[in-house]
């Protein structure tokens, strides 16, 4: 007996409430964006400069003691958080200390870090500094810029690729879905105030790749079925295509999520934010390829005449079948 997550034949009507789904997505995007505008992201030092120190001690972490030890140095905004993780040993008490970039310093100063380390050592004798990272404001500014360019480039490149391989309606629908995924991911990072650093940008781009992967598979089937059933209305063809690929969509999402969840639970706290972004992205990406990309494609409509090249939409590559 085979394990089947999706019955062999399905005929769900994915577009019965397509306006509702699009509305819901739009609402979530607005909420996510508003949260980003109002609350902002909890940027890591990669993006706003400063220093993070990861400490470890056998003694329990007492944030107050740490704060009192550093306070006399007058370093401005300091965040101290204790880190918990199931992978830690009994005597592994970990804290993260974040110190803002010091005014007037373009570069990073070891003296400051050294002073903080000494102050902490005075308060907690057995403390160890397992990692110390400093990023100067000059670099962090550039890193934001590079990150934004990277995401924009990725989306742009994808737009062009799908346009060449399919038609402009497909490309536009796919890109709207991608923007949807990116905004929702940034939104949840802002809402939950999870640390947003360079690795999250990598995760964002992977989400872009994954969501696209899903969308392309659905679109590929839509294209094939449009050729096969020349007379059936678009909405039926699309419903059929999504139903036909549903089993695959679910299988792939489940295997990817299985892998990611084990990394989330067992991979340690250093990478957890990164993996969280990817898990979220896989869920949102799968949802968006069915409910956002396809709904928009339905809304935009498709040029059905596949026999002669259409001068206004797509070009000679639009009909290439690999």
């Amino acid at each position: 007996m085979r394990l089947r997550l999706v019955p062999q034949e399905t005929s769900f009507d994915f577009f019965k409430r397509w306006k509702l789904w699009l509305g819901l997505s739009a609402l979530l995007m607005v909420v996510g964006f508003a949260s980003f505008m109002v609350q902002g992201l909890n940027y890591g030092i990669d993006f706003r400069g400063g220093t993070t120190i990861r400490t470890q001690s056998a003694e329990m972490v007492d944030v107050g003691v740490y704060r009192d030890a550093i306070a006399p140095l007058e370093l401005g905004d300091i965040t101290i958080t204790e880190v918990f993780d199931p992978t830690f040993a009994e005597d592994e008490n970990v804290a993260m200390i974040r110190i803002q970039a010091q005014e007037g310093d373009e570069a990073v100063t070891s003296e400051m870090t050294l002073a903080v380390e000494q102050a902490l050592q005075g308060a907690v004798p057995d403390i160890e500094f397992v990692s110390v990272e400093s990023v100067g404001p000059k670099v962090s500014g550039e890193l934001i810029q590079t990150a934004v360019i990277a995401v924009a480039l990725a989306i742009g490149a994808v737009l062009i690729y799908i346009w060449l391989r399919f038609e402009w309606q497909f490309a536009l629908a796919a890109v709207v879905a991608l923007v949807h995924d990116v905004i929702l991911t940034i939104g949840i990072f802002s809402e939950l105030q999870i640390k947003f650093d360079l690795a999250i940008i990598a995760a964002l781009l992977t989400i872009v790749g994954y969501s696209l992967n899903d969308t392309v598979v659905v679109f590929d089937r839509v294209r094939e079925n449009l050729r096969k059933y020349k007379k059936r209305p678009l909405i039926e063809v699309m419903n059929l295509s999504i139903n036909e690929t549903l089993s695959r969509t679910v299988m792939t999402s489940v295997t990817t999520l299985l892998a990611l969840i084990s990394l989330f639970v067992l991979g340690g706290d250093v990478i957890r934010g990164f993996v969280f972004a990817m898990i979220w992205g896989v869920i949102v990406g799968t949802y968006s390829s069915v409910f956002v990309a396809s709904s928009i494609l339905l809304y935009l409509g498709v040029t059905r005449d596949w026999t002669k090249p259409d001068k206004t939409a797509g070009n000679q590559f639009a009909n290439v079948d690999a």
Partner: protein
Amino acid sequence: MLQIDSWKRVLIWLVCVAGLILALPNAFYTRVEQSNDAIAAIEIGADTPENQALAAQWPSWMPSSLVNLGLDLRGGAHLLAEVQVEDVYANRMEAMWPEIRDTLRPERATIGTIRLQPSEPDEIRVRISQPEGMARALEVVRGLARPVTSLTAAGQNDIIVAADGSDIVVTLSEAEKLASDERTVRQSLEIVRRRIDEVGTREPTIQKQGIDRILIQVPGIGSAAELKSIIGTTAQLTFNPVVNRTSDQNASAGIGNKLVPSIDEPGQYYIIEAAPVVTGEELVDAQPAFDQNGRPAVNFRFNTSGARKFGDYTRDNVGSPFAIVLDDEVISAPVIQSHIPGGSGIITGRFSVEESTQLAVLLRAGALPAGLTFLEERTIGPELGQDSIDAGKVATMVAFAAVLVFMALSYGLFGIFANIALILNVALIFGLLSMIGGTLTLPGIAGIVLTVGMAVDANVLVFERIREELKTARGPSRAIELGYEKALSAILDANITTFITAVILFAMGSGPVRGFAITLGLGIMTSVFTAIFVTRLMIVMWFERRRPKTIEV
């Protein structure tokens, strides 16, 4: 019908075997690493039985390249330094003064007296008392211009000479500034490398980044502060009078002298006066060149004070040798041919072109040509790296097991084929990573885990398609063939788009993010390969043997 040419079959299996063999050393990481280190140690002369034993831990006929572990996994220090390239302009301008003065002196009848004026650091201002002679003065000073030594700016001069009232203003041309920046960064890079190599840590990464930045990553070092202190120590370059040459390393040097070895003539020693005539801090430039007989030589130039000291010394010591000493080793000990005024000179010797280039680099590499500011510094403790490796290993194993079980449950025999392909897939990723000397980072492990999840996608696409084709029933072999055929366009489109994002990540990212892009990109390539060649071959081979009437996917 289902057919794959025999040569293709052989090729596919060969690729898989090659991947497995290349990946194999990583399974014995510590052992292979020790063996590699021992072999390297033997090569540089530490041929001890202990090293021999360590080297023999891994057979020499096996590939021994390993995946490099990134700093976040191994622990170590990371620095991003910016070279203050403008520092050099001021030195250059300062050093031009004696040259300009000496050139203008014979023209005093037309231009009157000449006086150095205070100015911005990147220019030099010389006032002449008879502004009518300006045209002549400019002409003479322009005669000092030299063509810029770079490929892109061929034909342009290094200095711009202009008149400002009764002042002659000399500045570096844009082309020369660019060339100078490039030289400065290259020199700094060379010095940093020499400094770090001297400490002898394992495989440091020292690369130029952008226009004026240097990225330094040293695994296994205690802290970024420690690394900075190593880089901060400038090389001591000195010019000392030579008292004697000897091959006796115990020769008594005498009071005020010291015995130093020669850098490129083993067993040769020089007795030199301990007090240097000039030090490397006063050298502004050294370039490979040719002497009047067309033999390779090195041109060098001192700043004002260095030029005076050097000029005086050479005037008084024509015919005697002087030593160019770097960190207590003699790089060369030429004989002074004539009085060298003006602060520039030429070192001739039995050089090949490479040697003269090398010497110029060494001379310039003596001291950091410009200051370094550190924009980014990271220290990752080795324990944290080890914790991450351990956690990553466990997570990957569990992820792997979960996906294998899930696939086998969902697709039965075909799922097992896909699982074999998946294992091959991960082996191929490691094999490729080792081959290209790629670096595995923590996000890179995540990339592999993600690939494990996504690699089955191509197989899932095919299997689902075969299921569909089986419904229209034209026999299992036709269904398999059509399944592969029709799924291909979806597989390619889906993977090419993901690959595009991996390429962008690689191009834009740095450090750990780049590590992630590499594993993701390699993972896409290997997963497409395993899905459309390896599983297909397995299915075809199984089908040929069994000839089943019906198949269940």
